């Protein structure tokens, strides 16, 4: 029972962090437009996030210090400052996108404009950060987020041509009428949606919130190795469900509602309601996590007192940083910029910035002074360096492809 409960943190990170508005949108867009020919990018992103999360969690459990603080200590103030600035900008865009995503989920359920929901959602996110215990958020959203499994059920009910789907995965080719540059641009957006720095910061800081130590290494590994791949599998289900319904109709996904259309086709109203609950849970949890992550990294960089287990009186600057993030993100969405566009920009810029946060984690995970006998094994290092090289290629290619394809048009 205790093991099952400890797994909930991983499940929440997988559902609320891994499957967030970025995954919902990019999986829907790519499934409708490119079929399953970009599953390799999803698999690569999932592998990268699993490695990254496992290393970040292990570093935290062994040293009992959060990753961002070690990054600052190990790489120096200036390097960590660049890291902090990039992470904060990305976090802000991510929180804005997630708030918009929650608003869109409520819009789809009520047909009341998402803009009207956003201030209420912003308040609720702040309230959850301020008042609701970490374990409650963990369990409630972990369970609600599992509603997204409805996409896998819908896929089975749609009776797709499994042979064709499998063939697209094994022999990926650029679909007729699409350019290679556009195809690779969306591959990058999938990687960017999977490998999100705030997840690693949240995962490591959350482990400290829950009092993890070296004794919890097995729990942490199970969480990372089960939770993140589960998130990747859900993203794959969302992508695959779009193939038999949206692709033949010529529907290009521009809105969150279009992502849910295959579920309604397969399972009707009940399935649709479950999918909307999943959208709400995944985006709301991700908004809370990303806002908390901003507070964590600022406080850890500057050496302030931090943690949700501390009251605003005990950790005032941490709570103000979280609050400011939520307020600014709410302001961004209230400008009426399309949340889906913010999502695409945030995942693509995130892809460009991944090495900034991935590399320091590898460095710290290899430092025997910090990690003792728990330093990276050789095969983990080999895999991590391969993945890191892939992430560098992604990072270098991101901006040229963004302009070349006019953001994937």
């Amino acid at each position, binding site marked *: 029972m205790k093991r099952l409960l400890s797994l909930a943190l991983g499940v929440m990170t997988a559902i609320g962090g891994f499957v967030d508005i970025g995954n919902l949108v990019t999986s829907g867009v790519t499934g409708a437009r490119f079929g399953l020919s970009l599953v390799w990018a999803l698999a690569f992103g999932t592998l990268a996030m699993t490695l990254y999360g496992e290393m970040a969690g292990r570093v935290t459990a062994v040293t009992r210090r959060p990753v961002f603080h070690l990054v600052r200590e190990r790489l120096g*103030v200036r390097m960590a400052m660049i890291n902090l600035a990039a992470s904060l*900008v990305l976090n802000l865009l991510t929180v804005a996108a997630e708030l918009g995503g929650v608003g869109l989920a409520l819009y*789809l359920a009520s047909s009341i404009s998402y803009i009207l929901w956003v201030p209420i959602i912003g308040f609720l996110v702040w309230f959850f950060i301020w008042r609701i215990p970490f374990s409650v958020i963990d369990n409630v959203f972990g369970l609600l987020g599992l509603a997204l499994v409805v996409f896998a059920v819908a896929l089975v009910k749609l009776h797709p041509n499994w042979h064709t789907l499998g063939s697209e995965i094994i022999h990926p080719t650029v679909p007729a009428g699409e350019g290679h540059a556009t195809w690779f641009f969306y591959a990058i957006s999938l990687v960017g949606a999977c490998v999100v720095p705030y997840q690693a910061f949240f995962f490591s800081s959350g482990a400290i919130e829950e009092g993890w130590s070296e004794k919890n290494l097995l729990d942490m590994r199970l969480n990372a190795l089960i939770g993140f791949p589960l998130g990747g599998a859900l993203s794959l289900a969302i992508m695959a469900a779009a193939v038999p319904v949206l692709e033949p109709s010529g*529907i290009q996904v521009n809105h969150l*509602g279009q992502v849910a259309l295959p579920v309604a086709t397969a399972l009707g109203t009940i399935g*649709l309601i479950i999918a909307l609950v999943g959208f709400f849970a995944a985006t709301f949890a991700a908004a809370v996590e990303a806002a908390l992550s901003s507070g964590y990294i600022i406080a850890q960089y500057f050496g302030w007192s931090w943690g949700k287990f501390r009251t605003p009186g005990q950790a005032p600057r941490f709570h103000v940083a979280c609050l400011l993030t939520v307020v600014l993100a709410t302001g961004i969405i209230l400008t009426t910029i399309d949340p889906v566009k913010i999502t695409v920009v945030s995942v693509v810029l995130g892809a460009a910035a991944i090495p900034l946060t991935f590399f320091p984690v590898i460095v710290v995970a290899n430092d025997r002074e910090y990690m003792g006998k728990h330093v990276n094994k050789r095969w983990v290092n080999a895999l991590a360096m391969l993945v890191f090289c892939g992430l560098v290629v992604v990072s270098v290619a991101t901006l040229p492809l963004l302009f070349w394809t006019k*953001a994937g048009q």
Partner: protein
Amino acid sequence: MADDPGRSRGAGLGGCRAPGRVGRTLAAIAAALIVAGCAEPSDSYADYQNKVQQTAVAMISAVATGQLASGQLVAGRSTGAFADAVVTDAEKDAGSIQTALDSRQPPDNRSIALKNQVDQAVQSAITGLADLRIAVRRDDVNGIRKARAELASARKQLERFAS
């Protein structure tokens, strides 16, 4: 640290300042993103034809979205609120697509003739989506069926330009 996990070590920055280069880079990225979103002018018939094709493909997507969402509603496989939201979004997309087409200057007479033809199809799609949105909001099943027929016809017209 074990007693006080929330307190980070090594506080104090010793007068460290954020590098100005970071701010300039972010500003450059923001400017480049804005430029990337701008439409470029068409300078030949072939180029304009290509833009018309993209317009038709995007408009077919909006029409198909309206058809699918309304079909689910009529079949009792969706909620009125969901169908309303999806159809409203599709109608807005169609309006944006039309505005984008109108903002492009046709480079020659052949392009103007092509624009006149595609304008008709685009207008039919927009009218069909508006009718569909009204019928969905009124829960008018006959109105939905009529609007779906309009959309099917508009889609046929658009498909001529999409291939």
